[in-house]
């Protein structure tokens, strides 16, 4: 646990210094506040921008941040130094995961300010689940990629599908049929309704299957790539 806390502290210190990652964390909450207040379009559903950006936030920020952090440590060989200092790979990944999840949740808390009080907890819980799944996916990419360039080239298409898929699904039925298998699309649908009822079950199953597949992929990558060697 001590080493996990060291990693979290290190990452917190790095938040302000690492502009690439900082922008990812700050961009969507700030954009949401600005656009939700600036755009007043007639007949636009309530909190449309917030919900749309929330899904994009889930698909982008944790994914990019985790992959960038891990791949940078691999490329600059600081990860091996940590491993040689007896930080276990699992401790390192847990530390990075907790850090990214917490910072993203802080961003989500800013985005939640537009919701009614009764919906805030449900919104944050949904976002928390989405962030956790994206962190696992970002971890897979970070472990697979040997350097930052390779991580970026893997993150970009995945991020585009997860973030823009749900948005494009609003306007195109064919895309919607494909996108419905993505956890980000199911989270978007859930955020639109903001109720837990029987119809939520199918979406929850799809999210759970997404999570299970990614966790499996994560452990496969973790075993095969021998982090830090």
């Amino acid at each position, binding site marked *: 646990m*001590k080493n996990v806390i060291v990693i979290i502290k290190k990452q917190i210190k790095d938040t302000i210094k*690492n502009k690439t990652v900082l922008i990812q964390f700050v961009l969507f909450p700030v954009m949401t506040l600005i656009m939700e207040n600036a755009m007043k379009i007639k007949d636009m559903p309530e909190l449309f921008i917030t919900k749309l950006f929330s899904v994009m936030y889930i698909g982008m920020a944790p994914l990019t941040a985790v992959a960038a952090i891990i791949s940078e440590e691999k490329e600059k060989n*600081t990860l091996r130094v940590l491993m*040689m200092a007896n930080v276990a790979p699992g401790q390192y990944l847990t530390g990075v995961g907790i850090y990214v999840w917490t910072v993203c949740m802080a961003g989500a808390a800013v985005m939640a300010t537009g919701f009614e009080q009764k919906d805030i907890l449900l919104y944050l819980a949904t976002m928390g689940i989405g962030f956790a799944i994206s962190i696992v996916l970002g971890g897979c990419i970070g472990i697979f990629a040997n350097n930052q360039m390779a991580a970026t080239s893997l993150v970009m298409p995945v991020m585009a599908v997860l973030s823009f898929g749900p948005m494009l699904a609003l306007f195109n039925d064919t895309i919607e049929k494909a996108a419905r298998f993505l956890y980000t699309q199911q989270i978007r649908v859930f955020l639109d309704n903001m109720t837990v009822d029987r119809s939520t079950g199918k979406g929850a199953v799809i999210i759970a299957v997404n999570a299970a597949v990614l966790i499996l992929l994560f452990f496969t990558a973790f075993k095969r790539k021998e982090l830090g060697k």
Partner: protein
Amino acid sequence: MIRCVDIYKSFADKLVLSGINFDIQSGEIFGLLGPSGAGKTTLIKILTGQLPFESGYAFTLGKNVGDLSGEDKRNIGIMMDEFGVYERFSCIENLKIFADIYGVAHVKIKDTLEIVGLGDAVKVKAKNLSKGMRTRLQLARVFLHSPKIIFLDEPTSGLDPQTMKSIHRIILDKKKSGATIFLTTHNMEEAAALCDTVALLNEGVIVEKGSPKEICRKYNHQKKIELHLSSGEDVLLPHGKESAGEIYKLFEAESVETIHSSEPNLETVFLELTGRKLQEDA
């Protein structure tokens, strides 16, 4: 402290270490001397449990390297050229991370930075450090938790002579405080100045080992007499009575500017044994 018994290691089909055997006693500075690509870094990786090997036994801290526990790793310090530092962090911030991991009090950080000569650069970001200062920061990271065994992979490679000498002093101070030091180098002067024992490694094979003085004595047949003549010519004569007549003639003709004997050094011994220069690829 460290023991290798008949270690073999290959990458794909290429044998990089072949039958490596040595013992390193506590408090000793052991130098592994060889040109680039000889297998020095591979051996450090094996001895620190970073790399598996095909056959043989490797012991560090008296334990099989595969069985090193977390507490054992706390007693090992490793500095490798390829290891990085946190570029966006200052020197002190870099060390704080490792002080927290090793459970070292933060008051020791500044002392350690002073020891390696970074007392004035405590708040300088690592990305703004020169190569020499970066090496010092890496050394500080290694020394921070006072490990019993220190592995240094070419610690002075690419540094200017002044920085090199100051790093040598730091290494010798660590030996005085009881640490066992395993260092790799392709600099024979460094090996001769620092090491109690050296092993000459060529293409994965240890071709000679012993104290630098012992090795040089063993190959004393290379001893020569060098004369620099007033004509600008350099003359190299065997160190023996057969040269006496010729030297006498040169002195009689008043054509000798300088004369000195040339003992073998680790470089010439390595050249004799392998046909290669230590720094040919450096």
